[in-house]
């Protein structure tokens, strides 16, 4: 696969000296879904805005499908669709007109068939003649997506597509993203919901304070960074952790029946074998053993936290 989007040393500094992006490098493969994860104010939106032409970069360069976004902006932008974070829509315009306008802005001939396909794909066809202001919040968000898809882009940016959206609508949005991926569109979405990245992304980038801390395959990231927990159920409750097990990082549950051991999957020796034999030596009868993978959320909090410590 070749990189459809290449970001090199992208910096954005504002007049007041604030550095929103501190030299970002990023390669995005055609057809993948990448989630940029980061807290509010991390620079996610600035990164997207700079790539899409809404703000200008201080230095660095970006190419989309090999076209530089400054010197060859027409070709580059023609490939990009942008769904902004805020619901920026003209309230009195009808759904179909606003989508047609978006297509027109890209200099494309009016093709009602394409507009219809996009509106149907987003379940907006029966609302096409409604004014935007008559729609619910979730529908307005879908209108934004329809507008972004009206010129059949190959790369779609979704800036916080599910911010302030209820659970059901969020699942809807994930389905839409999955369908788009099937149609071959490369998707870059930003989110501060970890479960979102976990649910739909192929790769995850973590961004904080204008720096891209890492970009990695989602499962690899979780495997590499993940801590695992081993929960051991014992038949007879105990009050304290036996002396023999004192050297292990164990916590005892309140009812005295579960011992939890946290270990690092990256470590050469996880210590599970010796722990289990030490347990039987201590005379504990085991009734069940369970392991649990830490979520992206914990990885993320760990990363952002480490970043703060380093600063």
């Amino acid at each position, binding site marked *: 696969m070749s990189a459809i989007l290449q970001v090199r040393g992208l910096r954005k500094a504002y007049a007041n000296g604030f550095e929103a992006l501190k030299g970002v490098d990023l390669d995005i493969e055609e057809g993948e879904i990448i989630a940029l994860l980061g807290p509010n104010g991390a620079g996610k939106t600035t990164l997207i805005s700079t790539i899409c032409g*809404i703000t200008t970069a201080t230095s660095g360069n970006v190419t989309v499908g090999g076209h530089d976004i400054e010197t060859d902006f027409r070709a580059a932008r023609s490939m*990009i669709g942008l769904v902004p974070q805020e619901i*920026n829509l003209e309230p009195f315009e009808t759904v179909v007109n606003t989508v047609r306008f*978006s297509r027109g802005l890209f*200099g*494309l001939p009016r093709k009602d068939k394409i507009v219809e396909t996009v509106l149907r794909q987003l379940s907006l066809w029966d609302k096409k003649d409604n004014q935007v202001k008559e729609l619910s919040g979730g529908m307005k968000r879908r209108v934004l997506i329809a*507008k972004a898809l009206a010129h059949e882009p190959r790369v779609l940016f979704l800036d916080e597509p599910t911010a302030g959206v209820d659970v059901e609508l969020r699942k809807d949005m994930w389905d839409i993203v999955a369908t788009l991926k099937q149609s071959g569109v490369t998707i870059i979405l930003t989110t501060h919901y970890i479960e979102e990245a976990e649910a739909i992304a192929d790769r995850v980038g973590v961004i904080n304070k204008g720096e891209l801390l890492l970009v990695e395959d989602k499962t690899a990231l979780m495997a590499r960074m993940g801590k695992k927990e081993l929960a051991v159920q014992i038949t007879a409750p105990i009050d304290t952790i036996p002396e023999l097990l004192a050297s292990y990082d164990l916590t005892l549950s309140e009812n005295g029946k579960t011992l939890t051991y946290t270990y690092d999957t990256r470590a050469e020796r996880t210590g599970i074998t010796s722990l289990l034999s030490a347990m039987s030596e201590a005379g504990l009868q085991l009734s069940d053993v369970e392991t649990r993978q830490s979520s992206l959320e914990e990885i993320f909090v760990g990363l952002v936290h480490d970043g703060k410590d380093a600063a």
Partner: protein
Amino acid sequence: MNWAAIRSIYLYEMSRFFRTLLQSFVSPVISTSLYFVVFGAAIGSRIDQVEGVSYGAFIVPGLVMLTVMTQAISNASFGIYFPKFIGTIYELLSAPINFLEIVIGYVGAAATKALFIGIIILITSFFFVDITIQHPLAMVAFLVLTCISFALLGFIIGIWAKNFEQLQLVPLLIVTPLVFLGGSFYSISMLPPFWQGVSMFNPVVYLVSGFRWAFFGLSDVPVLASLGAIALFTGICVGVIGLIFKTGWRIRE
């Protein structure tokens, strides 16, 4: 040039105008009629004639200019300020179009609207007074150029404005006084010499004078000076817009 995109912007802006067609036409027609009642009938009955032209007819060019200028400014400034205000400007900035194309689309639409309304007022005034247009081509040229140049100014104001108050500020504080003091309702020669001198610094004087010449063949300043003034004014506006384009001022900051 992405002409298809320019066409899209132009038609989209015009559709807003046609959606509110009645308001767009009724209010200028009513206000023009009121001007005729007040200036033409009430005051005009005591003024009789200005340089051989009946006062009622004399104010027609000024009246058309007054409306065209304010309409061009308000349409163009609102046209570009509105997307900034509701956030839809992101679409313009992320589309494969350059700033010049955006300007042509918005300014073209605003100028067209102003032209429409100017023509409506002209037609309305035929019901009140007898007018003959001595130089119809020059009349159209002055009208169109004024629409375009003031729409350019309006576009600059719309980019500059950070809120609705600022959007009103320039038209209210600068343009309206300039228009009223620009000889719309009187001949500059009626002023004391000092104020005649001051008036020569008012660009609107040149526009109104040239436009009036196209009607009656009489003017406060030479026609070529009028043409020069409107060219200079347009040039300045284009220059400022070019600068905005280069720096991304208040758009891509």
